[in-house]
């Protein structure tokens, strides 16, 4: 870990010291004072007079026809104000569906979520009615009194079974359950496989669970009749998308809906989706004339918040005698859930990620996206990329074993050499452009990780442990992850007459330190005083355009726009100050909230004075011949992704009597380009690593054969806790990307990506006396014990 700031000492950056850069400094986060004292403002902390509480009536069936809804008993309960069904809402809807899917030519059919299920419910947890009452307790009482006459229909649970010719239909009216199919191909895989010296075949089941931000979803809507505007405060990663969807569904224009994010208690992907509940709460507030709050509980988070789930892979790798990969091919069946709540990007990412970090000359992957009667699947931190990395790294381990080569050596023989950067792959991104790896030295990064983890010394440690009856193993994984997806993020930097520097960004914060990051970048240009910066993110009233938080993008896209906007404002400050101070621009320096001539404190002018001079005085021209206002708005366009990369080495100890896995050592070397705040980068990586460990050993979102969820609380669905986490050894390399003005790459998802393959590799190594082969993630102790027993008997 980088050295943290120490309280009570001088600030790390002295604004008066020109050489002191805020970029690359581990400045303490500006978010923290409120959050450590209980003064954060999360959505459930919002209170206002007249507030009603909402609860949702949800389908208990994975698939059912809805015959009749009777709310009379619920409405008779004192304190209950309204129950709305889809039929009640219909007169106020421009459409009863949320049409949000990312564009693709591969869809075979469209299935958009309903505002409320009207006559068919297609997953457990699908909302059917909303109840408004004086308290949450009463609203939940009343929700149980709403009588819904469900007529259960056959349900599809397994995504492979969904594609069988005689499978029940996920939606009564659809022709089949294949939502989309596509091939990701390049080269001549068929020819290469027919000629290759070695072909190895492996099948994998990969599962990832939910987001499980510790704050669930939630929102508060208030309609202001005076302004004819409804404000929705919602715990979302994408407020601008939410406003757009709400306007479309409710037939409102942009000035009638404002969406703002309070403090968001973690996102991790599923909060980038706009949900039916947000539409319902907004409309309910407009209809009943009182503010309405809905706070998701954890059970609802399990059944109604999107999640990642199952992928089944059948793969083959062709190699030569030296272990050089000639080609990879296979098929993926991807569980999509019942609706398209984001797109088919997850499956695309998985297929695209497989060959990304290595030279794979020929590639052919067929992807089938299958509907199931389960809550929709959308990205969770990592967004399909971990699954691709898992397959590649598992196949390389297989090659090493079959050809009796060191696992590290097989990687070295296939990695993209640094001299080939930038490296144009033969893959196309979802927008159709070529995928080009912008920068990095993958072999050097890998070599550093191996050296730091003492890869070469491990066999001796392993032998010694084995002599003591202990089973140690070491595993490894490289990864490459596209980050900073464009096309842009919008940022305005404005200096007000107060002299304060205000930053308004289309970015959305969910705990990653966005405010601190933007403040560092803007302050670097405008006085280097972090306390003089205010930041507004995630508010559609503050920025007209915004994409929000996803794909490890905010430092890349919002950071770049903030940087360029701040540079433009700086240029203007200096130009006007030169006029006001009668000095040359070259003599000027911005220090705190003032511009000073050559460090002479007597000759100075405040940023507020300059700002006032540019807001105009009737009849007088502006100083310096500049245009009006001390502000700049930027949308730096970035179409190409910035590829972060890294290497992880993990040592585990496995207890063959229980199948229990203990991670004893974890080395992670990462390259996210130029670093803005190393402390925050460490934090992002560490959280991702923990998430990846959960995906390897703990997290399983289970459903039975009727698509009933069977893990709906945090006792059944396990998140990694402090006692399972090893101490993480984090190291950084900096290969700045040429793709944006800062040279930065994203980091938010990167920790996750290599963890499942590295851990499985280590477990197999530990259990090599039992010849254990792992072709799944996660793996539980019971499953591992069964594999050990199998090995003992054979």
């Amino acid at each position, binding site marked *: 870990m980088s050295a943290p700031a120490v309280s009570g000492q001088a600030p790390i950056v002295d604004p008066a010291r020109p050489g002191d850069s805020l970029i690359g400094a581990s400045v303490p986060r500006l978010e923290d004072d409120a959050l450590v004292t209980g003064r954060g403002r999360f959505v459930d902390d919002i209170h206002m007079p007249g507030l009603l509480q909402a609860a949702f009536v949800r389908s208990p069936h994975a698939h059912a026809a809805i015959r009749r809804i009777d709310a009379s008993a619920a409405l008779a309960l004192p304190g209950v104000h309204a129950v709305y069904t889809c039929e009640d809402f219909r007169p106020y809807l421009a459409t009863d569906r949320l049409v949000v899917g990312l564009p693709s030519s591969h869809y075979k059919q469209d299935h958009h979520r309903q505002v409320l299920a009207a006559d068919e419910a297609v997953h457990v947890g699908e909302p059917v009615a909303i109840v408004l009452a004086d308290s949450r307790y009463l609203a939940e009482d009343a929700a149980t009194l709403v009588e819904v006459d469900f007529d259960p229909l056959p349900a599809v649970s397994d995504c492979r079974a969904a594609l069988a010719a005689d499978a029940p239909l996920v939606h009564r009216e659809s022709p089949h359950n294949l939502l989309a199919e596509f091939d990701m191909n390049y080269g001549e895989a068929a020819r290469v496989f027919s000629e290759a010296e070695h072909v190895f075949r492996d099948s994998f089941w990969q599962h990832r669970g939910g987001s499980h931000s510790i704050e669930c979803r939630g929102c508060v809507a208030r309609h202001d009749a005076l302004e004819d505007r409804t404000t929705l405060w919602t715990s979302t990663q994408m407020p601008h998308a939410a406003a757009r969807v709400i306007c479309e569904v409710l037939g409102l224009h942009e000035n009638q809906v404002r969406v703002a994010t309070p403090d968001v208690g973690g996102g991790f992907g599923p909060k980038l989706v706009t949900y039916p509940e947000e539409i319902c709460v907004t409309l309910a507030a407009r209809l009943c004339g009182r503010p309405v709050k809905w706070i998701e509980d954890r059970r609802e988070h399990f059944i109604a918040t999107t999640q990642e789930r199952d992928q089944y892979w059948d793969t083959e790798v062709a190699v030569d005698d030296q272990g050089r990969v000639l080609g990879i091919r296979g098929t993926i069946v991807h569980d999509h859930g019942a609706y398209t709540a984001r797109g088919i990007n997850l499956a695309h990412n998985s297929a695209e990620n497989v060959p990304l970090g290595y030279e794979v000359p020929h590639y052919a992957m067929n992807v089938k996206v299958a509907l199931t009667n389960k809550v929709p699947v959308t990205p969770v931190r990592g967004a399909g990329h971990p699954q691709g990395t898992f397959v590649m790294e598992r196949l390389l381990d297989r090659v090493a074993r079959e050809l009796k080569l060191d696992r590290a050596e097989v990687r070295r023989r296939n990695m993209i050499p640094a001299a080939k950067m930038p490296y144009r792959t033969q893959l196309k991104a979802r927008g159709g452009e070529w995928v080009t790896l912008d920068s990095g030295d993958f072999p050097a990064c890998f070599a550093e990780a191996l050296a730091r983890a003492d890869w070469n010394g491990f066999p001796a440690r392993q032998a010694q442990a084995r002599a003591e009856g202990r089973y140690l193993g070491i595993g490894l994984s490289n990864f490459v992850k596209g980050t900073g997806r464009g096309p842009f993020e919008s940022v305005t930097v404005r200096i007000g007459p107060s002299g304060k520097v205000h930053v308004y960004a289309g970015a959305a914060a969910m705990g990653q330190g966005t405010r601190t990051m933007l403040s560092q970048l803007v302050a670097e240009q405008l006085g280097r005083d972090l306390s003089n910066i205010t930041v507004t993110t995630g508010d559609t009233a503050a920025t007209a355009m915004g994409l929000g938080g996803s794909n490890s993008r905010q430092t890349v896209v919002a950071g770049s726009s903030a940087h360029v906007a701040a540079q433009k404002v700086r240029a203007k400050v200096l130009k006007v100050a030169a006029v006001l101070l009668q000095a040359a621009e070259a003599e000027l320096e911005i220090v705190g909230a003032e511009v000073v001539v050559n460090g002479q404190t007597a000759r100075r002018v405040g940023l507020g004075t300059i700002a006032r001079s540019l807001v105009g005085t009737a009849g007088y021209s502006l100083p310096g011949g500049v245009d009006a206002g001390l502000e700049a708005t930027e949308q730096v366009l970035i179409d190409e992704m910035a590829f972060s990369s890294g290497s992880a080495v993990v040592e585990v100890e496995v207890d063959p009597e229980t199948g229990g896995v203990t991670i004893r050592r974890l080395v992670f070397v990462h390259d996210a380009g130029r670093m803005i705040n190393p402390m925050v980068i460490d934090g992002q990586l560490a959280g991702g690593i923990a998430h990846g460990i959960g995906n390897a050993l703990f997290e399983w979102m289970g459903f039975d054969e009727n698509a009933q969820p069977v893990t709906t609380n945090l006792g059944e669905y396990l998140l990694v806790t*402090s006692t399972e986490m090893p101490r993480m050894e984090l190291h950084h390399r900096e290969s700045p990307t040429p793709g944006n003005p800062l040279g930065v790459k994203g980091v938010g998802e990167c920790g996750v990506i290599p963890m499942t393959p590295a851990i499985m590799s280590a477990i197999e190594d530990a259990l090599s006396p039992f010849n254990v082969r792992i072709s799944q993630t996660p793996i539980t102790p019971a499953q591992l014990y069964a594999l050990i027993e199998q090995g003992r008997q054979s």
Partner: protein
Amino acid sequence: MDTTLSRTISLKVNGSAVQATVDVRHTLADFLRHQLELTGTHLGCEHGVCGACTVLVDGRSARGCLMLAVQAHGREVTTVEGLAGADGRLHPLQQAFKDHHGLQCGFCTPGMLTTLSELLADNPDPSEAQVRVAISGNLCRCTGYQSIVDATLAAAKSMRASGAAR
């Protein structure tokens, strides 16, 4: 059904005497958050696993979601709002969380801080393993826990150095 049964309770919250009428079925966490407007105590699961709602009751950590407000009658409750000094000076744990990046989204943080303040009151010089065990009932999805552990060890050290017996 009768949903209106209530009782009047008296308790101390963050050092101040409080008297209030509460519905008997309301949890302590809901009472603190919505009646006393002490919204620093967060609800993450409402079934006692995540630990975000942890408060101190008579100095002992307790789940605010698993305890009814009426059960706090006659007790002394401390929430995250009560950790800092009356002068606003941060508790050493709060300061250390800032210094060591012991929080990201901040949602689990209040429960972490109350849990750890109990640990440090009991054991001024905990080992890393003891810190990990102490927070093993508090889920954090952001940090991977390492920075929380580091912050706690640093806070313990600074408290020992200053002899602060909070």
